[in-house]
């Protein structure tokens, strides 16, 4: 797998799906994604599973891997062309159908711009959402890295199974990653929790996201609490760091 194909997988499986969760939390994103009628776009990249994003009239976004008839369907002949698109550069996308939906494409574009703003900037107005979104993407990206990176299977075997939950009082909801299924999500996981990582405040969480947290010190101080199987938390953080580095602008 080349760097581009791995990065494309991270976008398809981690970044774009974040639109769904963030649309439920951010009014600006919902506003950007809203429209007069429902709209769905399916993105297909050679060598990857497809990603469908469905936009409701009120701007709520849902995501899946199953295209539906009538979707605006875009096919990218290479991971590189897809990555050009998500970085707002001109790219080759071949038509796959659903052209009557073309006028709605602006909603995908503006929602994407808002997603960029939330994930890439740190305005006080949305700092907590920035942290939550970043963690959301980081967890899904870690799962994607474990699925697709050449070292992923061996790393996954060393990590083992178990469900990791991240919490912080300022976040809209806990986030979790189930290493048995490599699924991630928000709220309460269905599987038993193996390790619970609780950040006491936003500053501690931001330091962690910036790879600037003195975690042993934070644990001693109580600004970070890890309950459960500590080695899993430690090892998962390394995978999240690797995956996150691939997504840095």
């Amino acid at each position, binding site marked *: 797998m080349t760097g581009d194909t791995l990065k494309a997988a991270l976008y398809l499986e981690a970044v774009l799906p974040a639109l769904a969760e963030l649309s439920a939390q951010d009014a600006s994103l919902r506003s950007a994604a809203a429209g007069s009628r429902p709209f769905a776009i399916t993105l297909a990249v050679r060598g990857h599973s497809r990603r469908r994003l469905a936009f409701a009239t009120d701007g709520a976004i849902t995501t899946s891997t199953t295209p539906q008839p009538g979707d605006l369907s875009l096919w990218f002949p290479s991971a590189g062309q897809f990555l050009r698109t998500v970085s707002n550069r001109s790219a080759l996308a071949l038509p796959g159908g659903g052209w009557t939906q073309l006028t709605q494409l602006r909603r995908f574009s503006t929602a994407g711009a808002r997603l960029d703003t939330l994930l890439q900037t740190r305005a006080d107005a949305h700092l907590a959402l920035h942290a939550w979104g970043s963690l959301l993407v980081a967890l899904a990206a870690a799962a994607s890295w474990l699925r697709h990176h050449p070292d992923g299977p061996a790393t996954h075997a060393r990590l083992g199974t178990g469900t990791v939950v991240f919490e912080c009082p300022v976040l809209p909801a806990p986030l979790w990653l189930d290493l048995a299924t490599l699924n991630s999500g928000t709220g309460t996981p269905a599987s038993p929790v193996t390790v619970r990582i609780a950040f006491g405040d936003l500053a501690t969480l931001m330091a962690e996201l910036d790879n600037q947290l*003195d975690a*042993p010190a934070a*644990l001693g101080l109580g600004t970070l609490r890890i309950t459960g199987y500590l080695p899993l938390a430690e090892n998962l953080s390394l995978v999240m760091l690797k995956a996150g580095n691939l997504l840095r602008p």
Partner: protein
Amino acid sequence: MNFDQSQALFRRAAAVIPGGIYGHTTPAATVPGAVPYFAAEGFGCRYRDVDGNVFIDFMGGYGPLVLGYHHPEVEAAAHAARQLGAAFNHPTPLLVELAEKLTQRIDFADWAVFAKNGADLTNWSIMVAREVTGRPKILKIRGAYHGTAAWCTPGHGGLIPSDRVDIADFPFNDITALEALFAQHRGQVAGLILTPFHHPAFADSVLPTPEFVAACNRLCREHGALQILDDVRCGFRLTADGSHSLYGYKPDLAIYCKALANGHPISACVGRASHKAAASRVFLTGSYWSDPAPMAAALATLDIIAREQIPQRLALLGQRFVDGFLALGKKHGVDLIASGPPAMPYLRVKDDPSFMRTQALCTAIVAQGVFIHPHHNWFISAAMTEADIDEALRRIGIAFDSLPTTPHFAS
């Protein structure tokens, strides 16, 4: 029980020390907030933390305090040596006496060298194995702890891929995997480094099968590799003459540390005469490695261990503790698993892969003034009496009573 002074001191520490407290004594590896962070004073099998809380100590400094804090005979020997000076230009006669003591005590040992920590000499021992054989590869048990050098550290930071290109690991007691590694690296294996039994953190201890020990002995002999026994944690605790004699290993080199001098800083590596010349070619030194006081403490400790049959005493005390602990679990409807030799037992809640219930139990026990660790094997101290064990069990019983109200225990 409060830990206000510990917490206050830790806030100062976190400002000026990476991690606040680093390494194996970091509170991060225990249950932060529920345990003391800083010690003030030790006496016998108990210690007092900086808040004045007193604990019956089942960790003993993570192993060194085999005879308990302030053992009078050991302290007198160390004090007498210290009165004469420290870190001289030359070793003192104690260096020779201690080397002679170890070579008399340990059946395969023909020579001995000394350092400060176990890791000083696990690192040196693999260099000796490479010098003896002219080969690069070291085989080790997966998950075994041998120190903080790049070839073996359990940490992640600061490593580069080449640090471990000549290290291969295999699961403890897995003869097939060990045979496969020897075959895969035929003619390249310098040494096999082992702990006498497997005592990883965050897992049960595992005793060696006789077949595994025999395979280690056979494969090292057949392949001309050195067998290195990392007896740092177990040495002189399970037997008075090294743990190889208990399990049947035939080591070429063995490293001792924790129980060697009852808390005074010294480690030792012993080896066979056939490797002495090669060992002399592997440079070995440290500013304080010839310091006489720890050597005097080691001589006294070794005498006491043999004279008072300390390993037998630790085994009996440990068995009393483990049996009592398991009985308390049964009485309170909490299934427990005990592993490891009774002298260095580890107990945890059964069917608890997240360790959350074990952590909750540990928290409750520490709150009753019994210091145990939720993720690391424990150490029985010879300073304990049967009454101390029974007192600890009584307190643990109170801890069990409190469990229904302990967060995470029911989860």
